[in-house]
Protein backbone atom coordinates (compact mmCIF):
# COMPACT_ATOMS: atom_id res chain seq x y z
CA UNK A 1 0.00 0.00 0.00
CA UNK A 2 1.25 3.40 -0.80
CA UNK A 3 -0.41 6.00 1.26
CA UNK A 4 2.51 8.17 2.16
CA UNK A 5 3.25 10.48 -0.72
CA UNK A 6 0.68 13.04 -1.69
CA UNK A 7 0.75 12.09 -5.34
CA UNK A 8 1.26 8.36 -5.03
CA UNK A 9 -1.34 6.46 -7.00
CA UNK A 10 -2.44 3.27 -5.25
CA UNK A 11 -1.33 0.14 -7.10
CA UNK A 12 -3.73 -2.00 -9.13
CA UNK A 13 -4.52 -4.40 -6.29
CA UNK A 14 -5.22 -1.53 -3.95
CA UNK A 15 -7.46 0.19 -6.49
CA UNK A 16 -9.36 -3.07 -6.81
CA UNK A 17 -9.84 -3.19 -3.02
CA UNK A 18 -11.07 0.38 -3.06
CA UNK A 19 -13.61 -0.19 -5.81
CA UNK A 20 -14.70 -3.35 -4.03
CA UNK A 21 -15.24 -1.47 -0.76
CA UNK A 22 -17.15 1.39 -2.34
CA UNK A 23 -19.29 -0.92 -4.48
CA UNK A 24 -20.10 -3.18 -1.53
CA UNK A 25 -21.07 -0.22 0.60
CA UNK A 26 -23.59 1.14 -1.85
CA UNK A 27 -27.03 -0.38 -2.36
CA UNK A 28 -27.42 1.58 -5.57
CA UNK A 29 -25.40 1.10 -8.74
CA UNK A 30 -22.55 3.54 -9.20
CA UNK A 31 -21.31 4.83 -12.54
CA UNK A 32 -17.63 4.68 -13.41
CA UNK A 33 -17.55 8.43 -12.98
CA UNK A 34 -19.04 8.26 -9.52
CA UNK A 35 -16.57 5.58 -8.53
CA UNK A 36 -13.71 7.54 -9.99
CA UNK A 37 -14.73 10.55 -7.92
CA UNK A 38 -14.54 8.47 -4.74
CA UNK A 39 -11.07 7.08 -5.47
CA UNK A 40 -7.80 8.91 -4.95
CA UNK A 41 -6.51 10.95 -7.83
CA UNK A 42 -4.91 8.94 -10.63
CA UNK A 43 -6.89 5.74 -10.11
CA UNK A 44 -8.48 3.91 -13.03
CA UNK A 45 -11.91 2.84 -11.79
CA UNK A 46 -12.91 1.22 -15.10
CA UNK A 47 -9.90 -1.09 -15.14
CA UNK A 48 -10.32 -2.00 -11.48
CA UNK A 49 -14.01 -2.71 -12.14
CA UNK A 50 -13.39 -5.13 -14.96
CA UNK A 51 -10.76 -7.01 -12.92
CA UNK A 52 -13.16 -7.15 -10.01
CA UNK A 53 -16.03 -8.40 -12.20
CA UNK A 54 -13.79 -11.24 -13.33
CA UNK A 55 -12.79 -12.05 -9.77
CA UNK A 56 -16.41 -12.36 -8.66
CA UNK A 57 -17.62 -14.40 -11.64
CA UNK A 58 -19.35 -17.52 -10.39
CA UNK A 59 -19.37 -16.43 -6.78
CA UNK A 60 -22.35 -15.99 -4.49
CA UNK A 61 -22.39 -12.30 -5.29
CA UNK A 62 -21.48 -10.80 -8.66
CA UNK A 63 -20.18 -7.50 -9.94
CA UNK A 64 -22.79 -6.59 -12.50
CA UNK A 65 -22.95 -3.92 -15.10
CA UNK A 66 -26.35 -2.24 -15.05
CA UNK A 67 -26.72 0.30 -17.77
CA UNK A 68 -23.97 2.84 -17.29
CA UNK A 69 -23.45 1.80 -13.70
CA UNK A 70 -22.08 -1.08 -11.67
CA UNK A 71 -23.31 -2.85 -8.58
CA UNK A 72 -22.76 -5.98 -6.53
CA UNK A 73 -25.78 -8.24 -6.58
CA UNK A 74 -26.50 -11.76 -5.36
CA UNK A 75 -26.29 -14.51 -7.97
CA UNK A 76 -29.78 -15.15 -9.39
CA UNK A 77 -29.50 -18.92 -8.91
CA UNK A 78 -29.39 -18.41 -5.14
CA UNK A 79 -32.67 -16.50 -4.97
CA UNK A 80 -34.32 -19.43 -3.20
CA UNK A 81 -32.17 -18.68 -0.14
CA UNK A 82 -33.38 -15.10 0.00
CA UNK A 83 -37.02 -15.63 0.85
CA UNK A 84 -36.60 -13.41 3.89
CA UNK A 85 -35.17 -10.59 1.86
CA UNK A 86 -37.95 -10.51 -0.74
CA UNK A 87 -39.58 -7.13 -0.86
CA UNK A 88 -43.29 -7.49 -1.53
CA UNK A 89 -44.17 -5.20 -4.38
CA UNK A 90 -47.53 -4.41 -5.85
CA UNK A 91 -48.06 -6.25 -9.08
CA UNK A 92 -47.94 -3.93 -12.02
CA UNK A 93 -51.11 -3.85 -14.15
CA UNK A 94 -51.01 -5.18 -17.69
CA UNK A 95 -51.35 -1.67 -19.05
CA UNK A 96 -48.39 -0.54 -16.92
CA UNK A 97 -46.11 -3.41 -17.92
CA UNK A 98 -46.99 -2.88 -21.58
CA UNK A 99 -46.29 0.82 -21.34
CA UNK A 100 -43.01 0.08 -19.59
CA UNK A 101 -42.02 -2.42 -22.28
CA UNK A 102 -42.86 0.07 -25.03
CA UNK A 103 -40.73 2.76 -23.37
CA UNK A 104 -37.86 0.30 -22.95
CA UNK A 105 -37.94 -1.05 -26.52
CA UNK A 106 -38.84 2.13 -28.35
CA UNK A 107 -37.07 4.75 -26.25
CA UNK A 108 -37.01 7.67 -26.57
CA UNK A 109 -40.73 7.48 -27.19
CA UNK A 110 -43.50 10.06 -26.99
CA UNK A 111 -46.82 9.52 -25.33
CA UNK A 112 -48.55 9.70 -28.73
CA UNK A 113 -46.30 6.91 -29.99
CA UNK A 114 -47.09 4.74 -26.97
CA UNK A 115 -50.76 5.32 -27.66
CA UNK A 116 -50.31 4.50 -31.30
CA UNK A 117 -48.77 1.17 -30.39
CA UNK A 118 -51.21 0.27 -27.62
CA UNK A 119 -54.27 1.60 -29.45
CA UNK A 120 -55.56 3.32 -26.34
CA UNK A 121 -54.73 6.49 -24.52
CA UNK A 122 -52.15 6.23 -21.79
CA UNK A 123 -53.68 7.06 -18.47
CA UNK A 124 -51.87 9.60 -16.35
CA UNK A 125 -51.78 7.17 -13.47
CA UNK A 126 -49.58 4.72 -15.36
CA UNK A 127 -46.95 7.25 -16.28
CA UNK A 128 -46.97 8.53 -12.72
CA UNK A 129 -46.63 5.05 -11.32
CA UNK A 130 -43.70 4.20 -13.58
CA UNK A 131 -42.01 7.48 -12.81
CA UNK A 132 -42.59 6.98 -9.10
CA UNK A 133 -40.90 3.60 -9.34
CA UNK A 134 -38.08 5.50 -11.02
CA UNK A 135 -38.28 3.12 -13.96
CA UNK A 136 -39.00 5.74 -16.60
CA UNK A 137 -38.08 9.39 -16.80
CA UNK A 138 -38.41 12.24 -19.25
CA UNK A 139 -35.92 12.23 -22.09
CA UNK A 140 -35.14 15.04 -24.47
CA UNK A 141 -37.98 16.70 -26.30
CA UNK A 142 -38.57 15.40 -29.80
CA UNK A 143 -37.59 17.81 -32.56
CA UNK A 144 -40.96 17.67 -34.24
CA UNK A 145 -43.82 20.16 -34.25
CA UNK A 146 -45.04 20.71 -30.72
CA UNK A 147 -41.71 19.46 -29.37
CA UNK A 148 -43.35 16.61 -27.44
CA UNK A 149 -41.59 15.17 -24.40
CA UNK A 150 -40.16 11.69 -24.70
CA UNK A 151 -39.79 8.93 -22.15
CA UNK A 152 -36.75 6.77 -21.55
CA UNK A 153 -35.96 4.06 -19.01
CA UNK A 154 -33.73 4.79 -16.05
CA UNK A 155 -30.71 3.31 -14.36
CA UNK A 156 -33.05 2.00 -11.65
CA UNK A 157 -34.95 0.12 -14.37
CA UNK A 158 -31.71 -1.40 -15.64
CA UNK A 159 -30.79 -2.31 -12.07
CA UNK A 160 -34.19 -3.81 -11.31
CA UNK A 161 -34.25 -6.02 -14.39
CA UNK A 162 -30.53 -6.77 -14.33
CA UNK A 163 -29.80 -5.27 -17.74
CA UNK A 164 -26.21 -4.46 -18.56
CA UNK A 165 -27.27 -2.38 -21.54
CA UNK A 166 -30.50 -1.52 -23.37
CA UNK A 167 -29.29 -4.00 -26.02
CA UNK A 168 -29.79 -6.79 -23.49
CA UNK A 169 -33.56 -6.39 -23.51
CA UNK A 170 -35.03 -9.83 -24.23
CA UNK A 171 -35.78 -10.44 -27.89
CA UNK A 172 -34.61 -6.97 -28.93
CA UNK A 173 -32.62 -8.19 -31.94
CA UNK A 174 -35.51 -10.28 -33.24
CA UNK A 175 -37.98 -7.45 -32.84
CA UNK A 176 -35.66 -5.11 -34.65
CA UNK A 177 -35.02 -7.63 -37.44
CA UNK A 178 -38.79 -8.04 -37.87
CA UNK A 179 -39.08 -4.26 -38.26
CA UNK A 180 -41.37 -4.03 -35.25
CA UNK A 181 -39.37 -1.31 -33.51
CA UNK A 182 -39.39 1.09 -36.38
CA UNK A 183 -41.73 3.97 -36.20
CA UNK A 184 -43.70 2.92 -39.24
CA UNK A 185 -46.04 5.74 -40.08
CA UNK A 186 -49.54 4.73 -41.03
CA UNK A 187 -50.16 4.80 -44.80
CA UNK A 188 -52.61 7.63 -44.42
CA UNK A 189 -53.82 9.18 -41.26
CA UNK A 190 -57.12 10.79 -42.21
CA UNK A 191 -59.50 7.89 -42.24
CA UNK A 192 -57.80 5.59 -39.79
CA UNK A 193 -59.09 5.17 -36.27
CA UNK A 194 -55.52 5.54 -35.03
CA UNK A 195 -55.96 9.28 -35.34
CA UNK A 196 -58.79 9.01 -32.92
CA UNK A 197 -56.54 7.23 -30.44
CA UNK A 198 -53.97 9.92 -30.80
CA UNK A 199 -56.63 12.51 -30.10
CA UNK A 200 -57.12 10.92 -26.71
CA UNK A 201 -53.67 12.19 -25.88
CA UNK A 202 -55.02 15.70 -25.65
CA UNK A 203 -57.61 14.99 -22.98
Amino acid at each position, binding site marked *: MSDGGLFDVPDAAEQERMVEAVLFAS*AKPLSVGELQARLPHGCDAAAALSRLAELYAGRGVEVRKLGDAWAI*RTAPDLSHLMMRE*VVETRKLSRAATETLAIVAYHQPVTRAEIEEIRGVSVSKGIVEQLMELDWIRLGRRRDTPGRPVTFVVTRTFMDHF*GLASPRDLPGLAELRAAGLLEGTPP*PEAETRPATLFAAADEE
Partner: protein
Amino acid sequence: MADDLSEGPVRDAVADRLAAEALIVDVAGFEGPLDLLLRLAQTQKVDLRKISVTDLARQYLAFVKRAREMRIELAADYLVMAAWLAFLKSRLLLPPDPEEEGPSAEEQAAHLAFQLERLEAMRRAAAALMARDQLGRDVFARGAPEGVARTRRVTYTATLLDLMQAYARTRTRDEFRPFVMDRDDVWTMEEALDRLRPLIGNATIWTDLAAFLPEGWDGDAARRRSATASTFAAALELARDGRLHLEQADMFGPIRIRGRT
Protein backbone atom coordinates in the same frame (compact mmCIF):
# COMPACT_ATOMS: atom_id res chain seq x y z
CA MET B 1 -84.44 -26.68 -11.80
CA ALA B 2 -87.38 -28.52 -13.36
CA ASP B 3 -89.33 -25.29 -13.62
CA ASP B 4 -86.66 -23.79 -15.77
CA LEU B 5 -86.73 -26.74 -18.11
CA SER B 6 -90.50 -26.60 -18.50
CA GLU B 7 -90.56 -22.89 -19.15
CA GLY B 8 -88.51 -22.32 -22.24
CA PRO B 9 -88.73 -18.53 -22.48
CA VAL B 10 -87.47 -18.05 -18.93
CA ARG B 11 -84.49 -20.25 -19.58
CA ASP B 12 -83.73 -18.32 -22.74
CA ALA B 13 -83.90 -15.08 -20.81
CA VAL B 14 -81.42 -16.44 -18.30
CA ALA B 15 -79.15 -17.66 -21.07
CA ASP B 16 -79.36 -14.28 -22.78
CA ARG B 17 -78.56 -12.51 -19.57
CA LEU B 18 -75.59 -14.75 -18.96
CA ALA B 19 -74.40 -14.19 -22.51
CA ALA B 20 -74.85 -10.45 -22.11
CA GLU B 21 -72.91 -10.48 -18.87
CA ALA B 22 -70.17 -12.51 -20.48
CA LEU B 23 -69.97 -9.95 -23.24
CA ILE B 24 -69.90 -7.08 -20.78
CA VAL B 25 -67.05 -8.75 -18.98
CA ASP B 26 -65.34 -9.35 -22.29
CA VAL B 27 -65.70 -5.77 -23.45
CA ALA B 28 -64.48 -4.57 -20.09
CA GLY B 29 -61.54 -6.90 -20.38
CA PHE B 30 -60.40 -5.35 -23.66
CA GLU B 31 -58.25 -2.34 -23.75
CA GLY B 32 -59.80 -0.68 -26.74
CA PRO B 33 -60.59 -1.86 -30.27
CA LEU B 34 -56.98 -2.74 -31.14
CA ASP B 35 -56.79 -5.08 -28.18
CA LEU B 36 -60.07 -6.67 -29.20
CA LEU B 37 -58.87 -7.01 -32.80
CA LEU B 38 -55.68 -8.64 -31.61
CA ARG B 39 -57.65 -11.13 -29.53
CA LEU B 40 -59.87 -11.92 -32.52
CA ALA B 41 -56.86 -12.20 -34.82
CA GLN B 42 -55.21 -14.63 -32.46
CA THR B 43 -58.20 -16.94 -32.88
CA GLN B 44 -57.31 -17.24 -36.57
CA LYS B 45 -54.23 -19.06 -35.35
CA VAL B 46 -52.04 -17.89 -38.18
CA ASP B 47 -48.97 -15.71 -38.41
CA LEU B 48 -50.26 -12.20 -37.85
CA ARG B 49 -48.58 -11.15 -41.08
CA LYS B 50 -50.70 -13.60 -43.00
CA ILE B 51 -53.89 -12.66 -41.25
CA SER B 52 -57.03 -12.17 -43.29
CA VAL B 53 -58.11 -8.65 -42.61
CA THR B 54 -61.47 -9.29 -44.26
CA ASP B 55 -62.11 -12.21 -41.91
CA LEU B 56 -60.96 -10.08 -39.02
CA ALA B 57 -63.27 -7.25 -40.05
CA ARG B 58 -66.16 -9.68 -40.28
CA GLN B 59 -65.44 -11.06 -36.80
CA TYR B 60 -65.16 -7.60 -35.34
CA LEU B 61 -68.37 -6.40 -36.96
CA ALA B 62 -70.17 -9.49 -35.71
CA PHE B 63 -68.93 -8.77 -32.20
CA VAL B 64 -70.14 -5.18 -32.36
CA LYS B 65 -73.49 -6.28 -33.80
CA ARG B 66 -73.99 -8.74 -30.96
CA ALA B 67 -73.07 -6.13 -28.39
CA ARG B 68 -75.60 -3.75 -29.89
CA GLU B 69 -78.33 -6.36 -29.94
CA MET B 70 -77.74 -6.81 -26.24
CA ARG B 71 -77.92 -3.04 -25.83
CA ILE B 72 -74.41 -2.86 -24.48
CA GLU B 73 -73.04 0.61 -24.64
CA LEU B 74 -69.88 0.44 -26.67
CA ALA B 75 -67.38 3.21 -26.37
CA ALA B 76 -67.20 5.51 -29.37
CA ASP B 77 -63.79 4.25 -30.46
CA TYR B 78 -65.17 0.72 -30.91
CA LEU B 79 -67.82 2.14 -33.21
CA VAL B 80 -65.36 4.25 -35.17
CA MET B 81 -63.22 1.18 -35.65
CA ALA B 82 -66.28 -0.77 -36.80
CA ALA B 83 -67.13 1.88 -39.38
CA TRP B 84 -63.58 2.00 -40.64
CA LEU B 85 -63.34 -1.81 -40.85
CA ALA B 86 -66.64 -2.00 -42.74
CA PHE B 87 -65.28 0.55 -45.19
CA LEU B 88 -61.95 -1.23 -45.47
CA LYS B 89 -63.68 -4.60 -45.97
CA SER B 90 -65.80 -3.28 -48.81
CA ARG B 91 -62.76 -1.76 -50.50
CA LEU B 92 -60.81 -4.98 -50.13
CA LEU B 93 -63.60 -6.96 -51.77
CA LEU B 94 -64.09 -4.57 -54.67
CA PRO B 95 -61.58 -4.12 -57.47
CA PRO B 96 -59.37 -1.09 -56.83
CA ASP B 97 -60.57 2.19 -58.23
CA PRO B 98 -57.77 3.52 -60.48
CA GLU B 99 -58.96 7.09 -59.95
CA GLU B 100 -58.58 6.91 -56.17
CA GLU B 101 -55.70 8.67 -54.51
CA GLY B 102 -53.97 7.79 -51.28
CA PRO B 103 -52.99 4.39 -49.95
CA SER B 104 -54.66 1.33 -51.34
CA ALA B 105 -56.93 -0.85 -49.27
CA GLU B 106 -54.17 -3.48 -49.27
CA GLU B 107 -51.71 -1.02 -47.80
CA GLN B 108 -54.13 -0.07 -45.05
CA ALA B 109 -54.86 -3.70 -44.31
CA ALA B 110 -51.13 -4.40 -44.16
CA HIS B 111 -50.65 -1.57 -41.73
CA LEU B 112 -53.42 -2.88 -39.50
CA ALA B 113 -51.73 -6.28 -39.55
CA PHE B 114 -48.45 -4.57 -38.66
CA GLN B 115 -50.08 -2.72 -35.78
CA LEU B 116 -51.50 -5.95 -34.42
CA GLU B 117 -48.21 -7.73 -34.80
CA ARG B 118 -46.36 -4.89 -33.07
CA LEU B 119 -48.83 -4.83 -30.19
CA GLU B 120 -48.51 -8.56 -29.77
CA ALA B 121 -44.72 -8.26 -29.88
CA MET B 122 -44.80 -5.63 -27.15
CA ARG B 123 -47.02 -7.87 -25.03
CA ARG B 124 -44.53 -10.69 -25.39
CA ALA B 125 -41.68 -8.30 -24.62
CA ALA B 126 -43.45 -7.08 -21.49
CA ALA B 127 -43.92 -10.67 -20.35
CA ALA B 128 -40.27 -11.48 -21.09
CA LEU B 129 -39.20 -8.40 -19.18
CA MET B 130 -41.27 -9.34 -16.16
CA ALA B 131 -39.89 -12.86 -16.29
CA ARG B 132 -36.35 -11.58 -15.87
CA ASP B 133 -34.57 -11.85 -12.56
CA GLN B 134 -35.83 -8.86 -10.70
CA LEU B 135 -34.11 -6.94 -7.98
CA GLY B 136 -35.70 -7.62 -4.63
CA ARG B 137 -37.27 -10.83 -5.92
CA ASP B 138 -34.54 -12.90 -7.54
CA VAL B 139 -31.48 -10.79 -7.11
CA PHE B 140 -30.58 -8.78 -4.06
CA ALA B 141 -28.65 -5.71 -3.19
CA ARG B 142 -26.53 -5.32 -0.10
CA GLY B 143 -28.87 -5.72 2.83
CA ALA B 144 -26.91 -3.41 5.07
CA PRO B 145 -25.44 -0.74 2.84
CA GLU B 146 -22.77 1.29 4.53
CA GLY B 147 -23.69 4.87 4.11
CA VAL B 148 -21.34 7.52 3.06
CA ALA B 149 -20.61 9.87 5.91
CA ARG B 150 -20.70 13.43 4.83
CA THR B 151 -18.15 15.67 6.36
CA ARG B 152 -18.53 19.34 5.94
CA ARG B 153 -15.45 21.36 5.26
CA VAL B 154 -15.82 25.07 5.15
CA THR B 155 -13.36 27.13 3.25
CA TYR B 156 -13.32 30.85 3.46
CA THR B 157 -12.65 33.19 0.67
CA ALA B 158 -12.13 36.87 0.19
CA THR B 159 -11.13 38.95 -2.79
CA LEU B 160 -8.47 41.57 -3.04
CA LEU B 161 -11.23 44.12 -3.22
CA ASP B 162 -12.68 42.86 0.07
CA LEU B 163 -9.25 43.17 1.57
CA MET B 164 -8.67 46.70 0.36
CA GLN B 165 -12.11 47.83 1.38
CA ALA B 166 -11.64 46.32 4.81
CA TYR B 167 -8.36 48.15 5.21
CA ALA B 168 -9.87 51.38 4.02
CA ARG B 169 -12.64 50.87 6.53
CA THR B 170 -10.30 50.44 9.45
CA ARG B 171 -8.11 53.35 8.45
CA THR B 172 -10.98 55.73 7.96
CA ARG B 173 -13.08 54.59 10.88
CA ASP B 174 -11.49 57.22 13.19
CA GLU B 175 -12.55 59.95 10.87
CA PHE B 176 -16.15 58.90 11.05
CA ARG B 177 -16.38 57.79 14.65
CA PRO B 178 -19.18 59.20 16.75
CA PHE B 179 -18.24 62.51 18.35
CA VAL B 180 -16.45 62.18 21.65
CA MET B 181 -14.90 65.04 23.58
CA ASP B 182 -11.26 65.44 22.93
CA ARG B 183 -9.63 64.69 26.24
CA ASP B 184 -6.28 66.33 25.72
CA ASP B 185 -7.21 69.35 27.88
CA VAL B 186 -9.26 67.53 30.48
CA TRP B 187 -7.95 66.71 33.97
CA THR B 188 -10.36 64.07 35.15
CA MET B 189 -11.61 63.74 38.67
CA GLU B 190 -9.95 60.33 38.91
CA GLU B 191 -6.65 61.98 38.09
CA ALA B 192 -7.30 64.77 40.61
CA LEU B 193 -8.17 62.22 43.29
CA ASP B 194 -5.04 60.23 42.57
CA ARG B 195 -2.97 63.42 42.89
CA LEU B 196 -4.72 64.81 45.96
CA ARG B 197 -4.85 61.67 48.09
CA PRO B 198 -1.11 61.30 48.80
CA LEU B 199 -0.57 65.10 49.15
CA ILE B 200 -3.33 65.87 51.63
CA GLY B 201 -1.68 63.87 54.40
CA ASN B 202 1.15 66.39 54.49
CA ALA B 203 -1.07 69.46 54.27
CA THR B 204 -1.31 70.21 57.96
CA ILE B 205 -1.97 73.89 57.39
CA TRP B 206 -4.68 75.59 55.33
CA THR B 207 -3.50 75.65 51.75
CA ASP B 208 -5.07 77.22 48.66
CA LEU B 209 -6.69 74.61 46.44
CA ALA B 210 -4.91 76.18 43.48
CA ALA B 211 -1.63 74.95 44.92
CA PHE B 212 -2.72 71.38 44.30
CA LEU B 213 -3.19 71.78 40.54
CA PRO B 214 -0.92 69.56 38.52
CA GLU B 215 2.20 70.96 36.91
CA GLY B 216 1.54 72.56 33.56
CA TRP B 217 -2.18 72.96 34.19
CA ASP B 218 -2.13 76.45 35.64
CA GLY B 219 -1.17 78.32 32.51
CA ASP B 220 -3.74 77.71 29.74
CA ALA B 221 -7.15 78.90 30.88
CA ALA B 222 -9.06 75.88 29.62
CA ARG B 223 -6.63 73.51 31.23
CA ARG B 224 -6.66 75.46 34.50
CA ARG B 225 -10.43 75.49 34.54
CA SER B 226 -10.63 71.73 34.01
CA ALA B 227 -7.97 71.01 36.63
CA THR B 228 -9.51 73.39 39.15
CA ALA B 229 -12.95 71.89 38.74
CA SER B 230 -11.74 68.32 39.07
CA THR B 231 -9.45 69.12 42.01
CA PHE B 232 -12.32 70.87 43.79
CA ALA B 233 -14.63 67.92 43.14
CA ALA B 234 -11.92 65.58 44.40
CA ALA B 235 -11.55 67.74 47.54
CA LEU B 236 -15.29 67.49 48.17
CA GLU B 237 -15.07 63.74 47.71
CA LEU B 238 -12.22 63.48 50.24
CA ALA B 239 -14.04 65.85 52.68
CA ARG B 240 -17.03 63.57 52.57
CA ASP B 241 -14.73 60.67 53.43
CA GLY B 242 -13.45 62.73 56.38
CA ARG B 243 -9.93 62.99 54.97
CA LEU B 244 -9.77 66.80 54.78
CA HIS B 245 -11.39 70.07 55.78
CA LEU B 246 -12.52 72.77 53.36
CA GLU B 247 -13.04 76.45 54.03
CA GLN B 248 -13.88 79.58 52.10
CA ALA B 249 -13.60 82.86 54.00
CA ASP B 250 -15.88 84.91 51.74
CA MET B 251 -17.92 84.67 48.61
CA PHE B 252 -15.70 83.98 45.55
CA GLY B 253 -12.72 83.97 47.90
CA PRO B 254 -10.03 81.36 47.60
CA ILE B 255 -10.93 77.84 48.74
CA ARG B 256 -8.46 76.39 51.19
CA ILE B 257 -8.05 72.81 52.29
CA ARG B 258 -6.24 71.12 55.16
CA GLY B 259 -5.68 67.52 55.90
CA ARG B 260 -7.51 66.08 58.82
CA THR B 261 -5.24 64.78 61.50
